[in-house]
């Protein structure tokens, strides 16, 4: 099918332009890949990424649309067939794109690349670009397509319909498990950003009353005036960022907002519970409006700043930590870079969105390419910007911010000595000067990625838009990250609560009533207790919690992607497209290899910082032989239990993936051999009435 662009442009010119894009992209990619030792300009990353996405969109997604999925513009979409003005609404493609992008872009693509930068810029950058073009974008596109052809059904329903009961149950439990881990790890990121930082804590705290005020405004004062409410809220948020500096300057006020990790964790837990049981209009919905605007505004500003500034990337292409000794998380570059960067390259979570609201809005099936493939390419671009922001820092500073105290030492002098000995020189004065500029007491051991990203963003923003406000930019970046992390905490807790109510409702029907308060409280409590447990013990973990929780989250997210790709592959095979099934089967195979080897290492590696079990056994032995004393001895039994719990979860994810893969293979074989298997549930072709200029059959 010829695309619109080539119809408008004379063919030789179009060909010349695309050859030009290919050459520029290849040159940029080659430049950053082959460069050793010299600083690279951030612009090359942008060029390489944009050219590859453009080529992927123009050619690979066109191939998927025309040959593999055979998008049919004459076929009525669910939005047209069930148009009810509410869930199913035929909507302008740009508007759907905006909704879809706002829904899929969360904190993941910002944090993952920041952590993965410990391997150097190259592994993460290549995985983001290649993974998105051949994996993530394809997954989102195909999941969206499958859902459109199935009346907008969800991933869980499709898994049950196409793969049978086992597949459906695995998908459901998988989603619930990933929610719990995701919320815990994101909560930990916010807590680490606020630890002993009155400015950050007060600004983040202020987002709660601001959201409530906007909620009341949009509910009672000016019902439904979303833009007015959001504009007021954004102004108040910016005032809160400035106000934080004033609180920070006053010794009394500052003591009200100065907390350590565990105390902040308890507050986030309490907040999460409140947000899950309060009516959505009061806190969740207005916070979401604010965070969406902030998110899109800041991402656009960051892109503009990077283009204006062309910052130099100081991180080497590869560091010695590709051997698995990295301070931020243990494990070799394979498979751990592919686990650490999930969102941004391929994220199973997107399949939930692509089979949720979005398929009910598409006015024309043809738009699935633009929205499914295109929105993921943009999200991946956000991950590239996060990678640049992490890599413009001096590597010594980057490692000083992100290395846990348990590894490099709690004293500043010890930490800089260890980090400098790795070949990344940094001094105590440099770190103190930086902390002072950013308006923080210290920037040592601020693990989780948010503070180092904020330092990177603040230096980019202040160089591009005015040098004097470094501390304000830093806290703006922290507020921006915290705002949408907390939105994910709220929304995720709520969704997990609904799912749990549904699950328990199978046994006790009254529990399934989403408005019955005893059930709401009990199920919210269970969900919050689940993620709260991991969050709280993450804050007292001497290695910083992120070290064990982020890989667990990555494995869970990739597992969900594997589920989505299993469903997609099955559907392709059943609809007679077996010769094209590799488009989803290859990314699936890669994910299975990556998740299995990562899970295997997390379970059985002898390296104490990688293997959960060896770490537990080592601690147990130290405890038994009396090598631990004081607080360490008191904490040890809890840490041992947590390690074993993490190991059990990893094993569960591993088994889930393999059950799904075996089920997929079984169903596909049956379909190919013409034996009995669950039939394809694609809905019949109904001609669209919205396409006026089309000759209908």
């Amino acid at each position: 099918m010829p695309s619109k662009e080539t119809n408008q442009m004379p063919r030789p010119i179009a060909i010349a332009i695309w050859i030009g894009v290919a050459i520029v992209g290849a040159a940029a990619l080659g430049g950053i890949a082959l460069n050793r030792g010299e600083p690279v300009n951030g612009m090359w990353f942008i060029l390489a990424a944009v050219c590859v996405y453009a080529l992927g969109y123009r050619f690979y997604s066109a191939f998927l649309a025309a040959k593999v999925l055979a998008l049919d513009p004459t076929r009525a979409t669910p939005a047209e067939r069930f148009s009810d003005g509410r869930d199913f609404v035929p909507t302008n493609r740009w508007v759907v794109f905006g909704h879809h992008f706002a829904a899929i872009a969360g904190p993941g693509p910002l944090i993952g690349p920041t952590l993965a930068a410990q391997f150097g810029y190259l592994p993460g950058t290549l995985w983001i670009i290649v993974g998105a073009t051949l994996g993530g974008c394809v997954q989102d596109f195909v999941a969206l397509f499958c859902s459109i052809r199935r009346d907008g059904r969800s991933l869980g329903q499709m898994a049950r319909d196409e793969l049978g009961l086992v597949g459906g149950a695995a998908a459901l439990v998988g989603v619930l498990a990933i929610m719990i881990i995701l919320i815990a790890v994101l909560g930990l990121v916010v807590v680490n950003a606020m630890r002993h930082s009155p400015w950050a804590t007060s600004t983040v705290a202020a987002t709660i009353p601001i959201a409530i005020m906007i909620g009341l405004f949009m509910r009672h004062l000016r019902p439904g005036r979303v833009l007015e409410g959001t504009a007021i809220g954004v102004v108040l948020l910016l005032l809160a960022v400035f106000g934080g500096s004033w609180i920070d300057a006053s010794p009394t006020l500052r003591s009200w907002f100065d907390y350590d990790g565990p105390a902040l964790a308890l507050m986030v837990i309490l907040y999460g519970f409140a947000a899950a049981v309060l009516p959505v209009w009061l806190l969740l919905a207005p916070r979401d409006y604010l965070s969406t605007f902030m998110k899109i505004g800041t991402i656009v500003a960051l892109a503009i700043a990077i283009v204006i500034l062309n910052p130099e990337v100081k991180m080497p292409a590869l560091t010695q930590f590709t051997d698995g000794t990295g301070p931020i998380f243990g494990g070799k570059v394979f498979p751990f870079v592919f686990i650490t960067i999930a969102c941004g390259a391929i994220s199973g979570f997107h399949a939930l969105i692509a089979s949720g609201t979005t398929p009910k809005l598409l006015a024309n099936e043809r738009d699935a390419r633009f929205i499914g493939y295109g929105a993921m390419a943009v999200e991946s671009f956000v991950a590239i910007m996060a990678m640049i922001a992490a890599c413009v820092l001096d590597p010594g500073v980057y490692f000083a911010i992100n290395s846990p105290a348990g590894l490099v030492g709690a004293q500043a002098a010890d930490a800089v000595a260890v980090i400098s000995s790795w070949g990344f020189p940094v001094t105590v004065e440099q770190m103190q000067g930086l902390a002072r500029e950013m308006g923080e007491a210290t920037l040592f051991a601020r693990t989780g990625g948010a503070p180092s990203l904020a330092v990177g963003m603040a230096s980019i923003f202040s160089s591009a838009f005015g040098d004097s406000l470094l501390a304000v930019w830093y806290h703006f970046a922290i507020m921006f990250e915290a705002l949408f992390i907390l939105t994910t905490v709220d929304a995720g807790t709520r969704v997990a609560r609904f799912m749990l109510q549904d699950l328990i409702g199978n046994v006790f029907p009254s529990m399934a009533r989403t408005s019955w308060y005893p059930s709401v409280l009990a199920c919210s409590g269970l969900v919050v207790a689940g993620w709260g447990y991991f969050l709280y013990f993450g804050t007292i973990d001497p290695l910083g919690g992120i070290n064990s929780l982020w890989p667990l989250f990555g494995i869970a997210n990739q597992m969900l992607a594997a589920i989505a790709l299993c469903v997609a592959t099955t559907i392709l095979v059943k609809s007679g497209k077996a010769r094209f099934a590799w488009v989803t089967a290859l990314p699936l195979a890669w994910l299975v290899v990556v998740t299995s080897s990562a899970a295997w290492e997390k379970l059985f590696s002898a390296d104490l910082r990688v293997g959960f079990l060896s770490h537990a056994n080592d601690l147990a032995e130290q405890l038994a032989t009396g090598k631990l004393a004081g607080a360490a001895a008191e904490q040890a039994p809890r840490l041992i239990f947590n390690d074993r719990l993490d190991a059990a979860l990893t094993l569960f994810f591993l088994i889930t993936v393999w059950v799904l893969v075996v089920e997929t293979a079984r169903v596909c074989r049956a379909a190919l051999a013409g034996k009995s298997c669950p039939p394809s549930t694609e809905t019949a072709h109904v001609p669209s009435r919205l396409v006026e200029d089309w000759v209908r059959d």
Partner: protein
Amino acid sequence: MTSWAKRCWAVLREMSGDDAYERYVAHWRASHAESGGVLLDRAAFFKEEQRRKWEGVKRCC
């Protein structure tokens, strides 16, 4: 230029849901007015809309 600005404003309103009520009224007049249903007022519509919007997975990592 002004028509372009207007178009952008319209897309922004639609994207943010600012014009949701107007769209609802238009849809109701087109499809449900004859059947004698009740047209919700702005506050009631917004209430219902928010409750409905937040059931299910709406935000990602």
